């Protein structure tokens, strides 16, 4: 297929996502889903001293969403929470408009979605889930809910 959506590097991320799987001892987590197309994703974080020290994801999602989550979890590791928030808002702009300031080169491959309005939500979903994860501390004795546990 010859279009600007599924670029090779994006396909690689979707076929072999990084940071996919359960995170041990997460401090924060959240589930996200796209009611319209069926993407389901969970993001788990370890936040220590105001910094994201580790980030992983699980779920069942389309190539765009999976690649976005794969790249995202790599990029946010080591950032302070305010830096993650800033990056998230730049990423939203990238997905909607095709360009945005201060976006790491690795994320730019996702700029192509802006030409496909129905897919923007797929690219943005991991970031929305990340935002809600940062606000949702994990109760010590309660394992994070995985999407599979919902059915």
């Amino acid at each position: 297929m010859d279009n600007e959506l599924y670029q090779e590097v994006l396909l690689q991320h979707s076929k072999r996502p990084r940071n996919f799987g359960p995170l041990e001892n997460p401090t924060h987590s959240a589930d996200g889903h796209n009611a319209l197309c069926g993407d389901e994703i969970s993001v788990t974080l370890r936040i220590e001293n105001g910094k994201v020290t580790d980030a992983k994801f699980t779920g069942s999602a389309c190539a765009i969403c999976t690649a976005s989550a794969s790249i995202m979890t790599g990029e946010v590791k080591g950032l302070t929470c305010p830096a993650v928030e800033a990056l998230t808002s730049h990423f939203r702009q990238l997905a909607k408009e095709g360009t945005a300031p201060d976006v790491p080169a690795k994320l730019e491959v996702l700029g192509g979605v802006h030409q496909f309005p129905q897919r923007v939500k797929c690219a943005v979903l991991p970031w929305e889930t990340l935002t809600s994860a940062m606000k949702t501390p994990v109760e010590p004795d309660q394992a994070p809910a995985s999407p599979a546990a919902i059915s």
Partner: protein
Amino acid sequence: MDMTTIRGQFPFLHEAVNGHPLAYLDNAASSQKPERVIRRMARFLESEYANVHRGVHLLSERATAAYEDARSVLAEFLGAGCLEEIVFTRGTTEAVNLLANSWGVKNIGPGDTILLTEMEHHSNLLPWQHLAGRVGAKVEFVPVLENGAVLDMDAARVLIAGRPKLFAFVQIPNTLGLENPASELCWLASEAGVTTFVDAAQSVGHRPVDVREIGCDFLACSAHKMCGPSGIGALWGRAELLAEMPPWQYGGEMVDRAHYDRPATFREPPARFEAGTPPIIEAVGWAEAVRFLNEVGTEAVREHSVALANLAAEQIREIPGLRIFGPGVRESGIVTFSIEGVHAHDVAFFANERGIALRAGHHCAQPLMRKLGSPSSSRASFYLYNSREEAEALAGILRDAVAFFR
């Protein structure tokens, strides 16, 4: 059926995607419209339009005649006892909401059971769950067996024998490619004194449907799924049941006498259930769609659609990791499937680039798709204007998608 003649009547077939002819396999979501339906609506707007019912002038007479003609065309198409049994609604969804809020609120109380099946569209699930919550009733489900191949008839017998207040079920689900034995189910229910509602959104206009033959008490359908316009559907109900039902929406046309200081009194059905200006243009367009389908023959439509679904299913079944939901042999024009390692959303996107319109997602049947272990799947659904070539193109494109994404 002469495919060249039929395809020639559908203007949308002139569209193309990236130079590929458009193969529209999203008919379970909504159907395309033949030229004559489009023309009829335009002509009606040019020379017959006005508000209906209350007018004595020329256009109002023409509009009223066309609107009520639509009611009688539909009544005959469904085998209704009289035209007063047809209540126009926005669609199947509104019809179910009307039934739940009028008949349901009146007849279902604390401790009562509403029986559904596990394969209902959200529109025949959520209104009943809400009603149950509101009045303290409970909802039970007839299970679906074996990968969605068939309704569990033994369970159905037991659950119906438990005398729920209502058994509401889908005749042709929009996902599984099967058809439920509607008259057998209604017969079991009526033997047990259980009122029945049939969700016929996927069956009316796709196969012959006769409410007396089915033996149900209520039935609903949508025009847009059967070559008619959006914005209109119908609830059919037995006259004696409609007569006892309270209004649901209130406004003009449905009232007999209104007062400042006392409750109003209401008109007889169907007026009682059609508050406000109804979908007038839509009724006229729908009647034309019914005339068109009557000429083609709904049994011919069914055979054609099911044959194409079977053709497509046989070919795609060979693809490694591809799983088709429902029975081995198709009973409707619907083929829902998932492919291991390739998400449905990507499949549909990929197919679209080659001109094939598929649907991806939960198909408004989240609990069912979750039970079948596939929260998101792809669906190809066939209708009278689809061709063998379109059905055959599907397998090749899916193979390419697998190679691309896996």
